[in-house]
Structures are given as C-alpha cells and as structure tokens.
C-alpha cells in the first residue's frame, strides 16, 4: 500500500465491521486512492471466490447414549455437581467444620435467665460459668443491699440525732422553765421569808424600842428609884 491506510481497516470494511462514520471515511478514501481501491477489489474478488466452497453436510450420525454409571461414577458425579455450586457446599461444609471445631474445643452454649452463656474447654463449663455468674449477681445484690442499709442507717441516725436534739431542746426548755419557776418560787419564798424576818425584826425592834423607851422612862422618873 502506498498510502497510510492500514490493512486492518480494509479488512474491517470488507467484513462490514466498521462503524458508519469510519466506513464512510474509508469508502471515500478508496474512491480517491487507486492502490487501496485495487487491493480492496482484489480482496472482494478473493472472498467471493472463496464463497464458492459451500458448506458440506457431514452426516456423521453421531449419537451419544446414556451410559449407566457405576456406583463410584455416580458418587463422583454427585460430588462434582455438589462442589460446582460454591454456595451449596460452602455453607454446609463451613457449618460442619464449625461444629467439629466447637466439639473439639468442648464448646457449650446455654440460655439462662435471659443470658447466653458460652464456654470452651473443660475448665470453663457452662455450670461453673453459671455459678460464677450467680455468685457475681449475689455479690452485687448484697453490695446493693448493704449500700441501701447503710443509707437507711445513716438516715435513721440522722433522724435520731435530730429527734434527740429536738427532745433535748424541749427538755432543756422545760428544765429552764422549771428552774425559772422554782427560782421564782424560791424568790417568792425568800421574799416572804425576808418579809417575815423584816416583820419579826420590825416587831422586835418595836418591842425593843418600847422596852428601851419604857426603860428610859423608868430610869428618868424618880419614883421609879429603888
């Protein structure tokens, strides 16, 4: 070829495997380019000639019969069909492997009081886990009860103290009132005593005064000399 047209393009045009735009472009080029036109025509002639060799009918009469499968073959076929469907076998195989592993590791699973218990091996049996869980629960309940008791105790102590304080205050007030009353009574008694004493003293003073006066009088009157 003397021009830039690639042989592949001519071949694509020959077998109608170019898009419309490309085909138009190439056909236009072929109209203008004598060498490409010649090659294209030769290719067309060759393919037209090749078409003269028509298809033959072989009449092979090949028929495949169903071969009765042996036991081994039928099992092999079943295994093949099974393994060809990855999802069909992967799930059960994975499940079986999981079950075997769980068995080997002595896996235990138990549902108890709303909780799932999982245990592996001999040491960590579900029962022991359950016991541990129960112990933990009891401990937590005890701790909670203790806390509550302490709180209640503190409240009681506080209330008792408050009551004691109140009672003490009341008793103190009563005592002070009693003391006041007694003091007043004492003062009254003291007052009465003093008044009595005063009256006695006054009487005696008057008697003394009277006696003294009488004595003075007697002493001062001559008639009164012995």
């Amino acid at each position, binding site marked *: 070829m003397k021009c830039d047209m690639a042989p592949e393009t001519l*071949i694509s045009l020959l077998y109608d495997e170019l898009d419309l735009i490309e085909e138009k472009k190439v056909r236009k080029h072929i109209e203008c380019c004598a060498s490409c036109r010649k090659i294209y025509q030769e290719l067309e*002639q060759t393919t037209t000639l090749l078409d003269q060799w028509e298809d033959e009918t*072989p009449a092979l009469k090949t028929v495949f019969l169903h071969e009765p499968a042996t036991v081994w073959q039928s099992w092999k076929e079943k295994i093949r069909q099974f393994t060809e469907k990855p999802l069909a076998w992967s799930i059960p195989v994975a499940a079986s492997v999981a079950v075997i592993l769980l068995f080997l590791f002595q896996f235990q699973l138990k549902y108890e009081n709303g909780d799932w218990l999982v245990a592996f091996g001999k040491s960590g049996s579900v029962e022991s886990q359950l016991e541990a869980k129960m112990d933990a629960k009891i401990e937590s309940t005890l701790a909670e009860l203790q806390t509550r008791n302490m709180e209640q105790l503190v409240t009681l102590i506080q209330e008792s103290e408050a009551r004691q304080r109140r009672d003490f205050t009341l008793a103190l007030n009563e005592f002070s009132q009693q003391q006041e009353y007694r003091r007043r009574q004492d003062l009254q008694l003291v007052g009465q005593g003093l008044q009595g004493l005063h009256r006695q003293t006054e009487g005696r003073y008057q008697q003394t005064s009277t006696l003294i006066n009488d004595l003075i009088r007697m002493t001062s009157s001559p008639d009164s000399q012995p």
Partner: protein
Amino acid sequence: MTDAALIERFLNGDINAFNTLIWRWEKPLYNFILRTIGNREHAKDLCQMVFIRMYKQLKTLKDPEKFSSWVYRIALNLCKDEFKKKRTRRTVSLDALTSEDSDQNTVKHQFQDRSIGSPEELMQNRQVESIIKNALKKIPDEQRVVIVMKQYQGLKFTEIADILNEPINTVKSRLYYGLRAMRKVLEESNFSKEVLLHEM
C-alpha cells in the same frame, strides 16, 4: 432452545440435550475442520473427537454463554495436532510426502489432471472447491485458520481473537495477508484471473 440451556440440561443428566447440541454443531464444526485441515475423512474423525471432548469436558465450561468460542478452541487444538502430525510425516518420509501429495493433489496437478473447461464447468463439478481447498493448504496455518473462521464460519473479529487468544489487529492482519496469499496462490495456479473476474 439456546446452547446454554441445552448444556444445562445435559449437565443435569439429559443426554438428548447433548445430542441436540452436537446435531446443531455438527455441520459448522465439520466444515471448519475440513477447511482447516483439508481432508474429509480426517475432518470427520476430528469432528467426532471434538464431540467426545465436549462430552467429557463440558462440565468444566464455566460460562455456557462462551460455548461457541470454547468448542472452536477444542476443534482448533485438534487441528493444530493434525498440522503437527502432517509436518512429522513430511519430515520423516519422502515417500509419505509423495503419497500425501498424490492423494490430496496440488492445485497444479488438479488443473493438469482434470480436463478443465470453462470456469462454469469448474464450478459445476465442484472443482472450484477443490482448487480453493488446495490453495488454502498452501498458505500458512495461522492465516488459513483466520480465513476459515471469518470467511466461512462468519465469526466476529472479537470472537476469533478470543478463540486464538490474540489481539484483534493480529487477527485482521493475518486475514489480510492470508487473503492476499490466497489470491497469489490462485493466480499462480492459472486459475485466478478468468475465474476471479468471472466471479465478480
């Protein structure tokens, strides 16, 4: 019913589905092999070998939609084995080469042996087929395969590229040079110009 559906039925144990599949593919495969190797008896044998391989290996086909490419690949591999055998025969014995040549005839011999009249007579007697067959034998195997796949089997370039595992441009290039070589061989066989021009 599509090939893929037949394959599925066969894989589920329906042997009749496989027979339907081979009846459907018998003609295209036989003609593909015949044009590729150029011998009817061998083509029949190879065609049956393709079916046996199909029967044995169909379960390994991952995508039934690609059955066409897959089956052509099987046929092509068998043809390639046949090419190798032929080459061995040629290199081992000169007698064999002679006998093969005499059995199958070259284009030149055909023209000499047969009384060729007009191109119309040639066509009527299926001698054109014989000439084409012999011309195809004279071009390189890889070019012949591409010509057969495109010209006779009507495969797309992408399909051929997939079967041969080659780039599309390589396929196109082989086809181009193959057709050019065919023309040259036909011209050399004193057949071309009159017949070719007549064909046009």
